[in-house]
């Protein structure tokens, strides 16, 4: 399914230089560090709930780097921690969501972390209801097409979300109208506890794209460069007016579904052992080291810089107040009603 990928050691995809690779890795490390902090804050009773991007980082950072935040749209779900960091959300902003503090940028902490709309790029997620974002994305792209915009809309969803009727309907419509959408499936083989083979009778979500008349690619989501290339190709297709692409990134969910979950209840031991071998941070670090772009000392420095950032952010957010009651009534409707 995957397009053949150039694996020669020094090969770089169009549009990425060695500095970009390092920068992407730095974001992954920051994401991981912050993500670990959030879980800690949950265990301390400070964060009510958290999902995690651990295991998905390479795929997420590669995806956003292949796109153009100055014009493109991003529809996420609860697991796009690295996407948000990659698009310029600060650790303070992200943490303020988990701690539900005032000034949280997406929804003023009305919603769960990562839900709402971003203040600086067109990234949003209206709800926690799995797969609702796929029709939204298709509508966003439809509006772009109607106005002859060159923007591309990327919508993230999980393997579980692929079972929802909305996923089918959205892909079908996007196929009929050849809309500039990238359907980005982060397949971690679990929907909470339900493993892939109970979710779908086929091995790959990408294989379904043919049912909607557009290409589907299924790739290793720990391979940052491979994902970058696949998403770049999908974006080029979309901008050229050739319609949607389904990009499936095969990743591991290194932690339980959320802080409320305990995956030892349902994941076999060998599965848990196996997933640990596919940690994208380690894979990416090894890739950078083998290319001579990173030493282990530099890596350690980079990690402690991330920890410092996260420590400072934690202190900042800890000191922030909760939203007060008076703002609870705002923004149910447009002020002044009709335009």
């Amino acid at each position, binding site marked *: 399914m995957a397009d053949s990928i150039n694996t020669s050691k020094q090969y770089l995809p169009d549009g990425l230089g060695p500095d970009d690779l390092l920068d992407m890795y730095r974001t992954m490390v920051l994401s991981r560090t912050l993500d670990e902090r959030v879980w800690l804050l949950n265990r301390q009773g400070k964060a009510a709930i958290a999902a995690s991007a651990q295991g998905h980082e390479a795929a997420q950072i590669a995806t956003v780097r292949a796109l153009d935040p100055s014009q493109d*749209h991003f529809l996420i779900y609860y697991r796009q921690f690295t996407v948000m960091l990659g698009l310029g959300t600060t650790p303070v902003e992200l943490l303020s969501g988990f701690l539900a503090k005032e000034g949280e940028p*997406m*929804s*003023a902490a*009305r*919603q769960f972390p990562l*839900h*709402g*709309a971003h*203040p600086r790029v067109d990234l*949003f997620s*209206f*709800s926690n*209801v799995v797969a*609702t974002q*796929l*029709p*939204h*994305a*298709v*509508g*966003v*792209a*439809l*509006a*772009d097409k*109607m*106005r002859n915009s060159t923007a591309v809309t990327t919508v993230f969803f999980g393997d579980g979300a692929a079972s929802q*009727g*909305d996923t089918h*309907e*959205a892909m*079908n*419509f996007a196929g*009929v109208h050849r809309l500039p959408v990238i359907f980005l499936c982060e397949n971690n083989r679990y929907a909470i506890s339900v493993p892939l083979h109970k979710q779908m009778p086929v091995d790959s979500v990408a294989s379904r794209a043919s049912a909607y008349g557009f290409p589907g690619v299924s790739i290793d989501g720990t391979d940052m460069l491979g994902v970058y290339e696949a998403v770049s190709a999908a974006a080029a297709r979309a901008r050229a007016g050739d319609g949607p692409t389904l990009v499936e990134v095969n990743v591991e969910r290194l932690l339980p579904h959320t802080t409320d979950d305990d995956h030892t209840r349902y994941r076999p031991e060998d599965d848990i052992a196996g997933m640990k071998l596919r940690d994208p941070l380690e894979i990416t670090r090894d890739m950078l080291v083998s290319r001579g772009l990173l030493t282990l000392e530099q890596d350690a420095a980079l990690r402690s810089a991330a920890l410092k950032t996260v420590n400072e952010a934690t202190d900042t957010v800890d000191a922030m107040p909760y939203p007060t009651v008076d703002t609870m009534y*705002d*923004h*149910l*409707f*447009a002020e002044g*009603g*009709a*335009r």
Partner: protein
Amino acid sequence: MSQMTVIEAVRDAIRGEMRADPNIFIMGEDVAYRGGVFLATDGLVKEFGDARVMDTPLAESSLAGIALGAAVNGMRPIAEIQFADFVWPAINQVVGEAARVRYGTNGRKFAPLTVRVPYGGGVRGGLYHSQSIEVLFAHTPGLKVVAPSTPYDAKGLLISAIRDDDPVIFLEHKKTYRLVRGEVPDEPYTEPIGKADVKREGGDITVITYGLMVHYVLQAAEELARADGVNALVMDLRTLRPLDRESICAAARHTGKVLVVQEDTPAVSVSSEVLAIIAEEAFFDLDAPVMRFGPPELPAMPFSPVQEAAYMPSPEKILAAMRRLAAM
């Protein structure tokens, strides 16, 4: 001014708004070359082309969800649900998503979306082409719900709905489409969302209703005045969310006797809320218990004609209820 039916008024409102604003477009099943199954959008594809009058696949959830996505990206979609009975697959996208876009993003995104929903019975539609589906929408914070009864109100309220920057559910009673005619200004105009309207003045009893029932109540009121000398004030709610509490209470106080008539089944419904409002706010001004009249608590409504007639409220049955109230 022209004489128009309700459906002509709907079409006229859409056409005028689409001429004025290129961001408005229609999407729905069979809305383009078929012109809609009721012909509400007849001729519009000719004028605006099939990108702005767009036939969609048969899939109401994504119809609503895609319209929502387009709305938050700067368009002003008018989504047509072919029959109210098929709105259920779209509930998740309308009630769960559209209603909460502005609130859930703290005002950063919003959805200027109109969902047109032809509803109601008395058209030999059987269990699945006759339903009243307003309850959940009327309950949901973040939605506005409009249900006009006359061509004049239909045009003015539909224009208000289209121009509204938030989602509006626009309920069109199918039976009024061709049954009800009236004077309609040729120019665009708006009627305010959230305001009830007194369709008949009267000092003896108050009847509150909406949709097709407005016309049945008005017929019954004429007969009641003629035969019994009892004068009924007839209030058309026009908007089901938010309800016009003030006008409802004023009308209740005016006569002290209130009947609420509704085509939908009564339990946990719009009529429940109207009674509750009056019971809360106008209790001391009442001369008799508030009354309701509606169909039996059965799924809407048998296809066979005798049973359909038995199910549907009619002017005669409403008149009888009005007489019971007047006699109290």
